[in-house]
């Protein structure tokens, strides 16, 4: 397996995106009071080249599409493809996700909508969730602190702005150290996933002494080998050099098929086909909570990248509320009525 640092992967993706002129995509979900959602896709490209297979969310012929040629903030002309569809409810969105044949069909996604009546207010919660790929990986927050997590989940242009303005050196150094930690997290998660998959395949084998627990103790060895053989890990694994160092030469010969199968499964999960995009959500009423980035209009924004759902589900959620005016009036009148009754009794008694 060719292990690459996140930095390298990002650089590669950018290079590929530039060479292929991959469109920049923003998906906006406008959530309505009744749980229906108007989904809008906005794709921008310097050329009028848009393929249906490029679209990051489920798309079909029922969408209303419009193309236009616009001028961007730099004064360059850009082709913009806009598509819009109204989904009657979340079930419709989830059905579309299940039948997705677009560029992100490899990931499992779903949306959730909850409307809670809380007497004085009605609360709305909407979430877009991408299921995790590794079931035995480590949570990223075990490796990064709050500041680093914030950087990791911030839109790229926001981080770029910091890196190019005042204190640019500080931010560049910060990002470099973050990338090292991210790589460590990915390696540990990769090793853990392989161990669990391998142990699963070995279960029930007669005379097999390799248990999940015994393999777990060799996780650090696996990680060190990953780090030491960056770039040639794939070939060394195929040659059977590395497996022997992890589980011993004797077991390596005995269980090479299982180890390779587990390695293949984990590699496929790790190098998943996924096109990054930006997700935005607009909620009904007043926004009161979100785990996303907000703009000045309280519109939420999340960059969606494959590393976000490697070991944990990526949940992009927002909560808003709307006051129930009638409930405020009814409650106010009731409280006043009770107070008046108590005063009346006191006067009558006195």
């Amino acid at each position: 397996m060719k292990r690459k640092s996140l930095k390298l992967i990002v650089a590669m993706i950018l290079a590929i995106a530039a060479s292929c002129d991959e469109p920049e995509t923003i998906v906006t979900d406008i959530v309505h009071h009744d749980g229906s959602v108007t989904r809008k896709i906005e794709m921008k490209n310097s050329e009028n080249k848009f393929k249906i297979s490029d679209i990051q969310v489920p798309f079909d012929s029922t969408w209303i599409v419009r193309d236009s040629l616009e001028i961007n903030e730099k004064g360059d002309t850009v082709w913009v493809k806009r598509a819009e569809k109204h989904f009657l409810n979340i079930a419709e969105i989830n059905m579309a996700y299940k039948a997705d044949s677009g560029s992100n069909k490899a990931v499992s996604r779903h949306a959730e909508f909850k409307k809670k009546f809380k007497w004085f207010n009605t609360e709305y919660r909407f979430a877009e969730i991408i299921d995790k790929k590794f079931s035995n990986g480590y949570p990223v927050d075990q490796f990064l602190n709050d500041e680093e997590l914030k950087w990791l989940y911030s839109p790229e242009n926001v981080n770029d702005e910091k890196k190019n303005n005042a204190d640019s050196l500080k931010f560049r150094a910060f990002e470099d150290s973050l990338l090292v930690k991210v790589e460590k997290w990915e390696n540990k998660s990769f090793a853990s996933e392989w161990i669990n998959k391998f142990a699963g395949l070995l279960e029930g084998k007669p005379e097999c002494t390799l248990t999940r627990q015994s393999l777990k103790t060799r996780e650090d060895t696996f990680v060190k080998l990953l780090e030491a053989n960056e770039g040639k890990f794939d070939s060394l694994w195929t040659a059977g050099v590395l497996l022997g160092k992890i589980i011993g030469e004797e077991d390596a010969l005995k269980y090479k098929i299982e180890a390779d199968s587990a390695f293949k499964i984990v590699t496929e999960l790790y190098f998943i086909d996924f096109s990054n995009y930006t997700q935005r959500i607009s909620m009904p009423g007043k926004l009161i909570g979100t785990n996303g980035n907000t703009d000045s209009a309280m519109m939420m924004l999340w960059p969606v990248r494959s590393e976000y759902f490697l070991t944990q589900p990526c949940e992009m959620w927002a909560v808003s509320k709307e006051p129930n005016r009638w409930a405020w009036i009814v409650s106010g009148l009731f409280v006043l009525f009770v107070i008046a009754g108590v005063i009346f009794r006191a006067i009558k008694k006195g």
Partner: protein
Amino acid sequence: MDEEKKKYDEIINLLRKSSPQFNGKKEIEDKIMHVIETGRQKADQSETFFDYLFWWVNIGWVRKSLVIASVLIVIIFGYQQTIILKRLSDLSRQPVVNDSRMFTYTSLTLKDDYLLNINNNELNPGKMKISDRRIKKLLKSYKEITEKYKELQKIIEEDPQLKKYLEDNLYTHDDNKIKL
């Protein structure tokens, strides 16, 4: 002097013996009773209304229940508002992302109701801070531009030479692009 005194005594005795004649006693009685009863009725009417409205204050358990319910309503209201304020405060501490990519957001079908979502370059359904006049003006301009754009497209489509010229200049990677 004695004779005068005697006359005086006789008159006094006479007056003492003759009791006063009281005519219309019943009429006076009725009048007094009427005045008393009218006043009582007025007091009774107001008392009956409040007694009817607040009948429950005389029943201990109903009174206590309603008081408890009122207190609970006030507590729930206070609690909910505190939670909301705390969440809003947390939200306001989050850095605001100024993403220029957001400004290209437009609708496919620009209708009056869609503009309810627009709020000085902001999107926020249900809230409108710009006046009707400005919306109408914006709509009018938008429609005019759309029509002009369609006309322009038609002209380009009908003129192969112009089309080729534009394609050559617009859709190449050349840095010297024509900026429409």
